[in-house]
C-alpha cells in the first residue's frame, strides 16, 4: 500500500502530511513520557522484527503472495502510541533504503499504515477481547479462541480500514483534480477493498500465529499499558478505561478521513461533473464512463455509510459492555 509520489493530488498529500505531523508529534511526546532510555533498544528490536517479518511472503492462492503490514501486531504488543512511532520509523527506513513509498506521499502512507492500521488493530482487539474471551487459556495454548479471534479481527480491520482510507484518498484526489491525479472511486474502492479484504485474512492468521508463538516463548515482549496506574480524577478516569481508549483510537482513525470528505464536498462534487465534460471534449474518446447519477452521490453515500456503521457498531458494543458488566470498566 506504499503510494509513490505524483499519484495523489497535492492538496490531499498536503492534508496527509498535516495529519501525520500532528499525530506523530503527539505520539512521540506520549512515547517519551512512557518509555525510559532503557526501552530504546527494545523498541528498535521490535521495529526491526516487524520490518523483517514484512519480508515474509504468505500465499494467497493462485500463485500470488501477500505481505504482513504488522501495524496491528505492533500495537497489540506495545500499545498504539509506541506502535505509531515504530511504524513511522519502519516506513522511513523503507523509503530511504528501497525508495519504497514516496516523499510527498509519506504523510498519507504514514496516516494509512503507521496511524490508522495500529489504531484500528489495537482498538478492535481491545474492544472485542473482554467480550469474547472468558476465563483462562486452555493449557498449552497462549490464549483462548475468543482472544485469538479478537486479535485476528483487529489485524483484519487494520488492513481493511487502512486500505479503505487509501482508496478514499485516491478517490478524492481524482475528484478534486478533475481527473489529473488519483484513481476514480469506482475503481479504487472496489480494487483496494477487495484485494485487502483477502490480504487482511492472511494478516489476521499470521498475526495470531506470531502473537501465540511469542506469548508462549517470550512473553516479556508484550509490554502492556495495563500496568500503568489508572488516574482517579474525573475526565482522566473515564479515559483510563481501556474500552474508552479503544473507542477513541477507532474514532481517531475514522476522523482522519473526515477532512477528505470536506475537501471532496467543497471542491470535488463539481470536479466529477467537469471530468465527464472533459471526457467528452478530450482528444480521445474515453473507454469507460462511470454511471453519472450514481457517481455523483456514490462517494458521499459510501462515506456516510461507513461512518454510520462504525458509530452504530461502537454504540452497540458499548451498550453490550454496560449491560453484561456490573463490573467497573478496567
Amino acid at each position, binding site marked *: 500500500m506504499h503510494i*509513490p*509520489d*505524483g*499519484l*495523489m493530488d497535492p492538496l490531499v*498529500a498536503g492534508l496527509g502530511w498535516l495529519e501525520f505531523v500532528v499525530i506523530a508529534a503527539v505520539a*512521540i511526546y506520549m512515547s517519551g513520557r512512557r518509555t525510559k*532510555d532503557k526501552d*530504546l*533498544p*527494545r523498541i*528498535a*528490536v*521490535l521495529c*526491526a*522484527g516487524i520490518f523483517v517479518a514484512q*519480508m*515474509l*511472503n*504468505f*500465499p494467497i*492462492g*493462485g500463485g500470488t*503472495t501477500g*505481505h*504482513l503490514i504488522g501495524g496491528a501486531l505492533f500495537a497489540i504488543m506495545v500499545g498504539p502510541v509506541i506502535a505509531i*512511532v*515504530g511504524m513511522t*520509523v519502519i516506513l522511513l*527506513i523503507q*523509503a*530511504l533504503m*528501497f*525508495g519504497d513509498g*514516496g*516523499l*510527498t506521499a509519506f504523510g498519507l502512507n504514514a496516516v494509512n499504515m503507521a496511524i490508522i492500521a495500529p489504531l484500528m488493530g489495537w482498538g478492535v482487539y481491545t474492544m472485542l477481547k473482554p467480550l469474547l474471551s472468558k476465563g483462562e487459556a486452555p493449557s498449552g495454548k497462549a490464549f483462548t479462541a475468543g482472544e485469538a479471534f479478537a486479535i485476528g479481527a483487529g489485524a483484519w480491520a487494520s488492513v481493511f480500514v487502512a486500505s479503505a482510507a487509501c482508496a478514499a484518498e485516491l478517490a478524492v484526489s481524482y475528484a478534486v483534480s478533475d*481527473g*489529473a491525479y488519483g*484513481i476514480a472511486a469506482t*475503481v479504487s474502492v472496489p*480494487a483496494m477493498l477487495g*484485494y485487502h479484504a483477502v490480504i487482511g485474512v*492472511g494478516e489476521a*492468521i*499470521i498475526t495470531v*500465529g*506470531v502473537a*501465540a*508463538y*511469542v506469548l508462549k516463548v*517470550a512473553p516479556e*515482549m508484550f509490554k502492556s499499558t495495563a500496568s500503568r496506574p489508572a488516574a482517579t480524577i474525573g475526565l482522566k478516569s473515564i479515559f483510563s478505561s481501556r474500552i474508552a481508549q479503544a473507542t477513541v483510537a477507532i474514532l481517531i482513525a475514522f476522523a482522519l478521513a473526515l477532512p477528505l470528505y470536506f475537501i471532496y464536498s467543497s471542491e470535488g462534487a463539481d470536479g466529477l461533473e467537469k471530468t465527464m465534460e*472533459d*471526457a467528452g471534449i*478530450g*482528444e480521445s474518446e*474515453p473507454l*469507460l*464512463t462511470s454511471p453519472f447519477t450514481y457517481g455523483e452521490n456514490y462517494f458521499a453515500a459510501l462515506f456516510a455509510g461507513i461512518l454510520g456503521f462504525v458509530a452504530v457498531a461502537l454504540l452497540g458494543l458499548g451498550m453490550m459492555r454496560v449491560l453484561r458488566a456490573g463490573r467497573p470498566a478496567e
Partner: protein
Amino acid sequence: MIVAHVRGHHTRPEELDEHARASWLGRLDPRAKIVGVVVFVVATALLTQTELILASLLLAVSFGAMSQVPYRHLIRMYLGALPFILVASVSVFLFSGLERGFDMWARTSSCVLALLVLASGTETFELFAGLRRLKVPKLVSALLMLTYKYILILGDELERMKTARTARGFKGGRGLLDGRGLRIISYTAGMVFVRASARADNGYEGLMARGFRMDMKQMRTSRLEAGDFAFMAWFACLSSLLVMFQLGVIQ
C-alpha cells in the same frame, strides 16, 4: 485486479554501497542530496502539463544515468514499483483519456526514479545521519540507527531460518486455506521476534558501555562544499522553473 506485492523481495545488494562510496553522488553531503531530491519531487508532484512532466522525466532519467548507480538495479527496483503506477495510469487513461494517463505514468515514474537514485546512490546510514543534521528529533534518529542495525542482524537470521526450513522440505504454503503452511510461516516470523527479544537487553548495556547518550553522532561529519551547493542549486533552479511554468507565472 491483481497488484503484485514485490516489496517482500526487496534486497539491497552489497555492491550498491560500494558503488555509492566510490561515486560522485555518494560523496555529496547527505543533507544536500535529500534537500535537492525533495525539492525536485515536490515540484514534479505539482505538475499537470504534459510538456513539463516530460521535462521532469527527462531530468530524472538523466540524473539516474549520471549517478553511476548500476542500471540493472534501478530498473529492477522501478519494475517493482511499476504495478501500482500502471494501475493508476491505466485507470486514469480509461476515465480521462490518453494524455492524462500518460501524464500520470510519467509523473509518478519521474518521482520514483529520483527517489530510487537517492536511496540506491547513498548508504542508508548516511541518509539517517543527514536527517539528524536536518533536525529530525533525537529519538527518531536514534531509533532509525538502532533499528537498521537490528534489521541487518535479524535479516541474516531470517535467511538462515528460511534455508533451514527449505532444507527440511518446506515449499511454501499453497493458499490461505493451507493451515499448516501458514502456521509454519507465522512460527518463522515468531522466531524472528523471540531471537530479537534476547538482543534487546544486551543492546542497552552495549550502548551504555560505550557512552551512548541517546543521540546518534558521527565520527566524521561532512561539510557543505561547492559540489553540494551546485547539486542543490541545479535541482532548485530547474524545479522552480517547472513550477513557475505550471502555475502560469511564466508562459
